[in-house]
């Protein structure tokens, strides 16, 4: 019992335990929000808000609306929850960028990832996991496309980053 408790706090959990817990929480999010968990819709609102500040977007999203959006707190919660999980196990540290090539790959990857997620209406969470969980055909097609994209990405990674 004590050993189990130690593993629960210190980790790592077996992958299947993580899957079960995430599945339960995913269903709870649906119950609370009346719509599934998603990440990039909220990121998009923040980025349009920021673009308006810079004068790049004409429409204005009031910051009060963003601060009262459920998605903001889900996203913030994921960051804080991971921070807490690392602190609880005494495993938190700032992990600086050690090689310049990973900085480029992060920026370019982020750009591709954000663009792709928004034209396909969802990321791995909103489009793939919850698209499939919603029994939508689009979710399955998106999953197939993501798998092919990952295959191309893996070739790029082998060529430039290893």
């Amino acid at each position, binding site marked *: 019992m004590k050993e189990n408790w130690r593993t629960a706090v210190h980790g790592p959990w077996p992958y299947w335990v993580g899957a079960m817990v995430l599945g339960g929480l995913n269903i709870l999010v649906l119950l609370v929000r009346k719509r599934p968990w998603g990440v990039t819709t909220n990121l998009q609102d923040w980025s349009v808000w920021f673009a308006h500040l810079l004068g790049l977007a004409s429409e204005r999203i009031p910051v009060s609306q963003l601060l009262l959006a459920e998605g903001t707190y889900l996203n913030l919660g994921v960051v804080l929850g991971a921070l807490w999980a690392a602190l609880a196990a005494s495993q938190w540290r700032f992990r600086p*960028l050690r090689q310049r090539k990973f900085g480029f790959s992060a920026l370019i990857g982020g750009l591709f990832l954000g663009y792709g997620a928004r034209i396909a209406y969802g990321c791995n969470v909103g489009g793939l996991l919850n698209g499939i969980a919603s029994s939508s055909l689009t979710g399955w097609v998106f999953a197939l496309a993501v798998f092919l994209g990952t295959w191309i990405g893996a070739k790029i990674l082998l060529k430039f980053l290893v």
Partner: protein
Amino acid sequence: MNPMVKNQRYWNWAFMSAMFFFFLLLAQINWKLALNLGLGVGLGFALEKSRFCFVAAFRDPILTGMTALSQALILLLGVSILGFALVAGSGQGYALNVYPLGANTIVGGLLFGIGMVLAGGCASGILMRIGEGFAMQMLALAGALVGVFFGERSLRWWQGWGWEQPGIFLPAKLGWLSTLSLEMAVLVVLWLLARWWQNR
């Protein structure tokens, strides 16, 4: 734990107290936002503790031949499908993620797949790794915010192609029982395939 490791217990207590007060404050404004924050913290905690990674579930079978995380993702999909069917099938007013299907779904999926391998995390993975303190994923988030903006601007253009079809909600076409049996059968086949791939 190794006694050489510097204990972060006090930081942990300080963080938990701050979180507690933030949660109370938010609950005063709107209890639903506080509930969302709590669920988000739970998701982030579970993602970090189980080292769950959507990217690895797709990438590791290709690059290292490991499918442990792919099998976990299949389990997560199965749990979510059944849970969503139970919740949305028995209640009213749930807006599920049934999105239109078009060329943008395929192109978006391809770009998203390439991007998440290079960025070292998908959208939720990036957020989780920022919480863990990775500078690389902070850069990736900056890139993603720019990409999201361009995506939002060009979505209209993609829709203008005119061959985007309305999303198909499978239970409306096939009925709940056939949909669920079909999806479970696909997941079982994928799981067997993943297990075979790893033991190959």
